[in-house]
């Protein structure tokens, strides 16, 4: 029975470790610019894919933010 508060503290301590995940610091921002962090890792490959979609399906875009793939924008 006496062990309960200690157990509760242990659980709390474990829970607090979740708060230890630090956001990216200003001096680490170069990491975001690394090639592997890009949404389109290989622009050439992406351009070829786009060309294929456009030629075969008259579809364009839709894989990013703008455009729904209707080929109308």
């Amino acid at each position, binding site marked *: 029975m*006496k062990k309960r*508060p*200690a157990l509760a*503290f242990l659980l*709390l*301590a474990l829970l*607090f470790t979740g*708060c230890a995940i630090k956001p990216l*610091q*200003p*001096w*680490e*921002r*170069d990491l975001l*610019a690394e090639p592997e962090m890009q949404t389109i890792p290989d622009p050439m490959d992406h351009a070829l894919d786009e060309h294929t979609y456009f030629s075969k399906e008259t579809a364009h875009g839709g894989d990013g933010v703008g455009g729904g793939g209707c080929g109308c924008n």
Partner: protein
Amino acid sequence: MRTRIGIVAQVLLCWIGMAFAAAPEIGQVLWMPAVQAEEGELDLQDYSGKVVYLDFWASWCEPCKASFPFMQKLHEDLAEQGLVVLAVNLDRRAQKAERFLAEHKVDFQVAYDPKAASAEALELQGMPTCYLLDREGRLIFRHTGFREEDREELKDAILKELSK
């Protein structure tokens, strides 16, 4: 049992305290962990009696590139009057800093902190960040970023401090 809870509570409070450690304030003596320079470890206390322009930079940071000629000019013009320009590099890999320094030749003091312990201690908000310290090591101002129009403002503050 109570002591044990007390200890756990203290540890937790310590964690919380560390998480919310305040950034240095104007007028406070600036402290940061020693940084590595070619001549060995550098401490801010080594520059007591000098006005220190402390800059944090990295090779990937574009405004840092723009700030280098400015700092070199400061060093050339004002070193004799008692200004020390100290640029702390925060690149994780030394080669990147070396490549940058090969392109931007400078005579002022460059130090390295690949683990960014100093940046963490000072809670840098952006890159580059510069600090101006008076002859007693107290913080006069802090400036984040570097734009062409900042030059005059920074230089004026430095000249004002040197004339004291």
